[in-house]
């Protein structure tokens, strides 16, 4: 009787687990009738940063659909392969190896987390394949490899921007505390912020670190509260930031919370709830600042997915568009995969002046010698009545 029960359970599990790979095989074999151009979209589809990955996937899917409905790329179909790096550098290395060794993948849109982009950088560099990130802002991401690009600002600029905003735009902020994620993104952004804050005369009263996936911040928050800062800058991602804000307000902290683009996710609002109210954050793009094409994209996105797009969906939408343009201009079916991958890089590297830049919904994108985008501004958002809205005062003159 008991053995029978155990046997049944095992059979049940095996059949549940066995189902999924089969499904995938079936779908991929039915689509090979038309010539496909394959591009990988690598992002955190699971794990603590999964909300970002979800928006990246949706943004990419919308662009893929639009491209293919408009006749594809010179008559060929664009197929995106979604590769999950779980937001972890160790996982990203494996994903990058898999992508680099797949002779059908022409380019990579991703990764999202700076740790992941950095883990992939060396592998993509060796294999000679473009890594175009729609989200990694750590300064090092575009250093040391000619194959890495990004279509948003980097943290050297963002950290400086936040320090100036706190000092010049907000009133009554003299002392600040920094609470940072102990990874490439959190540390890099913190360093940029602290350097500028000290230069312009803000007093840094505390600098506390936390580890990714922590959920209890009371010990560090109690230490920060004892220093009584006017503002607390959270240099990290929304998962932890939402709990920091929530536990901070519970512990009686009244300081102004300020986050960066890592906090820019609707999940920040759902987890932090009413504690999120009044939190400022920087972001590389807001739909409010976009033109008619951005509004059109937002409407199409809602029709397709049933939710409003966020910043990362928009940047991914543009990144896929840039790869599409590169393929359109350079893809040669006769040439080897190495040459085709190289041609994409050459095309992106040639977009080095405003005139040659790519006009997307998030603005004009062109690259400097490192592959960085230096012209795009930062926007400031504030949480008001449970929504992200553009802050009343923006800081546009800082470049």
């Amino acid at each position, binding site marked *: 009787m008991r053995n029978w029960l155990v046997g049944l359970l095992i059979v049940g599990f095996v059949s549940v687990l066995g189902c999924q790979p089969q499904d995938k095989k079936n779908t991929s074999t039915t689509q090979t009738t038309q010539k496909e151009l394959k591009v990988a979209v690598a992002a955190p589809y699971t794990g603590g940063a999964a*909300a970002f990955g979800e928006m990246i996937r949706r943004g990419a899917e919308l662009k893929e659909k639009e491209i293919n409905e408009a006749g594809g790329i010179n008559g060929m179909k664009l197929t995106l392969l979604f590769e999950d790096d779980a937001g972890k550098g160790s996982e990203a290395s494996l994903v990058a190896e898999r992508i680099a060794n797949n002779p059908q993948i022409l380019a990579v849109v991703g990764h999202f987390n700076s740790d992941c982009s950095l883990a992939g950088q060396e592998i993509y560099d060796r294999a000679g394949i473009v890594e175009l990130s729609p989200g990694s802002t750590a300064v090092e991401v575009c250093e040391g490899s000619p194959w890495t690009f990004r279509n948003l600002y980097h943290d050297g600029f963002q950290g400086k921007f936040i320090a100036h905003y706190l000092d010049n735009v907000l009133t009554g902020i003299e002392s600040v505390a920094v609470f940072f994620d102990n990874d490439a993104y959190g540390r890099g952004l913190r360093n940029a912020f602290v350097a500028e804050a000290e230069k312009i005369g803000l007093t840094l009263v505390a600098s506390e670190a936390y580890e990714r996936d922590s*959920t209890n911040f*009371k010990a560090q928050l109690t230490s920060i509260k004892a220093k009584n800062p006017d503002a607390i800058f959270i240099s990290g991602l929304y998962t932890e930031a939402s709990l920091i804000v929530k536990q901070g307000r519970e512990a009686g902290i009244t300081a102004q919370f300020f986050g960066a683009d890592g906090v820019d996710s609707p999940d920040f609002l759902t987890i932090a709830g009413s504690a999120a109210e009044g939190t400022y954050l920087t972001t590389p793009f807001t739909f409010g600042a976009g033109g008619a094409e951005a509004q059109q994209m937002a409407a199409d996105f809602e029709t397709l997915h049933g939710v409003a797009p966020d910043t990362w969906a928009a940047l991914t939408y543009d990144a896929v568009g840039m790869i599409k343009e590169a393929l359109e201009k350079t893809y040669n079916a006769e040439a080897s995969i190495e040459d085709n991958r190289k041609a994409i890089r050459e095309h992106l590297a040639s977009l080095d002046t405003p005139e040659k830049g790519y006009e997307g919904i998030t603005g004009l994108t062109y690259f400097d010698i490192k592959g960085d985008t230096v012209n795009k501004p930062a926007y400031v958002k504030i949480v008001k009545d449970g929504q992200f809205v553009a802050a009343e005062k923006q800081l546009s003159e800082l470049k």
Partner: protein
Amino acid sequence: MAQLLEQFINGLVLGGIYALIAVGYTMVYGIIQLINFAHGEIFMFGAYLALMLITVFNIPFWIALPASMLLCALLGMLIDLVAYRPLRDAPRLSALITAIGISLVLQNLARMIWSARPRLFPTETLPAFLVSEVNMQTGEILNAIPLPGGGILPYRDVFILLLAVVLMIGLNRLIYLTKIGKAMRACAQNRVASNLMGIKTNQVIAVTFAIGSALGAIAGIMVGLSENITPTMGYYKGVAAFAAAVLGGIGNITGAMLGGIIIGLAEVFGAGYISSGYRLAIAYIIMIAVIVIRPSGLFGKSTGTRA
């Protein structure tokens, strides 16, 4: 000084939660010498089941709390029945590896059902006194007791501490004053002899799993009140609680309670005064230091054959 007091309370609250989980590890070890690695996952299921009862079935918090405890008690008994009972007389290593397997199955099951997105109890579904928040205009804090020197003590923390103390006293009374408690102690001493004396050992073991799992479930819900609920929460909290059980002397319930408090305080003081990167490391250093001096833990008996 105010900071010290507040950190101390933070540590006690965390320690109380660890103690509730650690008791589950230690009870099962005491009776069948198995380190039940799936216990952390039961803790996680406790939080998710309560969340589901509240958000999907609109059941009030005060009913969802015992309901989730009951469901987790059943889950603990089911795991024992399906995974551990067939291996009762097999080498101990087989059962240990099975426990790790069950832990992975449950963690991935949670990921499949509820996805990896972190969740929280919606504030409006909780009893009002459990939600403390600062009034941004006046700096006044709702549902909290002001402490001397400017610190605060949220009612929620008082509630968690009281609940932990009441449950611990209750458990202690159960084990020392009731018939089933006596049977549990007998089984822990010698299972074969207990069986010969007419104790239905399999039933006693099932009850042990049920009690440990119910306490784990309530700890999961307490964590869900201020931290988030994720499929991996059982791993992170489970590792610390396991250290607490070992520190106190695995198999000894009083030891697990005290071990939980020590680990909780060590983590909070480590993170608050040294560096958060070392919070678990500090807990483990304390555990190792205790084990080096007293190999069977603070309250463990050295019997030679166990541990």
